[in-house]
């Protein structure tokens, strides 16, 4: 089933930031979002993930199918790598954590506490979480922050495997992941002053 976004307007702080966004994500496809800082990529992703109400338009096929990953990985420093992963696996009733450990080269760190990992290792653990959710649509906000080249390649491989298995990915990123992906530049969708004014509209 496709994820379809139609005429979507998203808002940050009560003000429309992107308007008239359209795209379709089919099984096996990835879409890379580009745009300068503050252009509304994060807001768009959060809206698609259902964390924020949309202002106008429609999102279909996203409900309960999304695995979301943002800047914060939601890791617990006091828990080990396996415990962190295992927790999310059981919350999402997803597959076992072995494949995820292997894909992100976390085997050797399995029993280490998340608090003792380096920034890049933490990030890898955060991304490995996506695999244990068993969800088809990955919505990723700057997934490669603090990853070195080898880890980025590891991540790209994981995404490719996910797509090959019929998954989808919506990724906001600045770097080239070497994926066969469509690119959507969000700059043209920038909401103009005359667009929907958001929460304050009634007061103008």
């Amino acid at each position, binding site marked *: 089933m496709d994820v379809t976004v139609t005429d979507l307007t998203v808002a940050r702080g*009560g*003000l429309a930031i992107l308007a008239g966004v359209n795209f379709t994500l089919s099984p096996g496809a990835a879409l890379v979002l580009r745009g300068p800082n503050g252009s509304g990529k994060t807001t768009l992703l959060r809206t698609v993930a259902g964390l924020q109400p949309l202002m106008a338009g429609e999102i279909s096929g996203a409900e309960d199918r999304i695995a979301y990953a943002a800047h914060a990985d939601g890791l617990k420093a006091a828990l080990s790598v396996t415990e962190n992963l295992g927790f999310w696996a059981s919350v999402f009733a997803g597959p076992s954590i072995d494949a995820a450990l292997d894909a992100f080269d976390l085997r050797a760190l399995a029993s280490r506490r998340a608090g003792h990992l380096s920034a890049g290792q933490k990030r890898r653990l955060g991304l490995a979480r996506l695999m244990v959710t068993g969800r088809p649509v990955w919505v990723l906000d700057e997934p490669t922050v603090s990853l070195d080249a080898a880890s980025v390649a590891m991540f790209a491989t994981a995404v490719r495997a996910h797509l090959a298995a019929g998954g989808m990915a919506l990724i906001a990123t600045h770097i080239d992941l070497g994926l066969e992906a469509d690119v959507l530049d969000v700059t043209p969708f920038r909401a103009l*002053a005359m667009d929907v004014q958001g*929460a*304050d509209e*009634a*007061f103008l």
Partner: protein
Amino acid sequence: MSLWEYANPVKFLRLSERVLPWLWGGAAICLVVGLVWGFFFTPDDFRQGSTVKIIYLHVPSALMAINAWFMMLVASLIWIIRRHHVSALAARAAAPVGIVMTLIALVTGAIWGQPMWGTWWAWDPRLTSFLILFLFYLGYVALWEAIEDPDSAADLTAILCLVGTVFAVLSRYAVNFWNQGLHQGASLSLDKEENVADVFYFPLLVCIAGFVFLFLALVLYRTGTEIRVRRTRALIARETRTTDLHAEARDA
């Protein structure tokens, strides 16, 4: 023409401009007449002496303290169900007025209680309930002040108001259970036998009308202020947005 038209901020402002002078005037006239009548031209009560004159402040303020919360509850419900901004802002505008009414009721109650009960403060169920109501008001106002995004603040305070109402009512019963109290019964009720004597009754009614007018005037005026704050915010946001776009167009 439906009442909901006035949920539009601009229409609301226009209406309130027209109504406000009458409300301020009504409040001033009723309060001056009622209080002067009550203070200068009513006899002392044979048991309570001249302290009975406090009734003209205590009863109306206590009534308004509860009515203000009730109004906030209704406004919060309207905001949750129909998302009219004016409604949320009216709830916000009413809270500080409610705080003042509660304070007046508490202070006059304490001053009245001193000669009557021989103590400034008694943990009487009614006084205690008002103290709890006062705390609820404080929390409500503090939550409004603490949250930056106005719509989120409206949502959160509306839910707090709903939950708070349930707990305020529960507290009222709990407090009754906990202490039977020495407060006199209701001063006004439909049962004529229980009412205060007529000499006190009519000036009291005038004072209540005065407090009602004053409350309405204050809430309407303060709601207007809140609307203007939001409008200023909206205008500035639009201005910033337009300037940004102009600058970009120049650069490109």
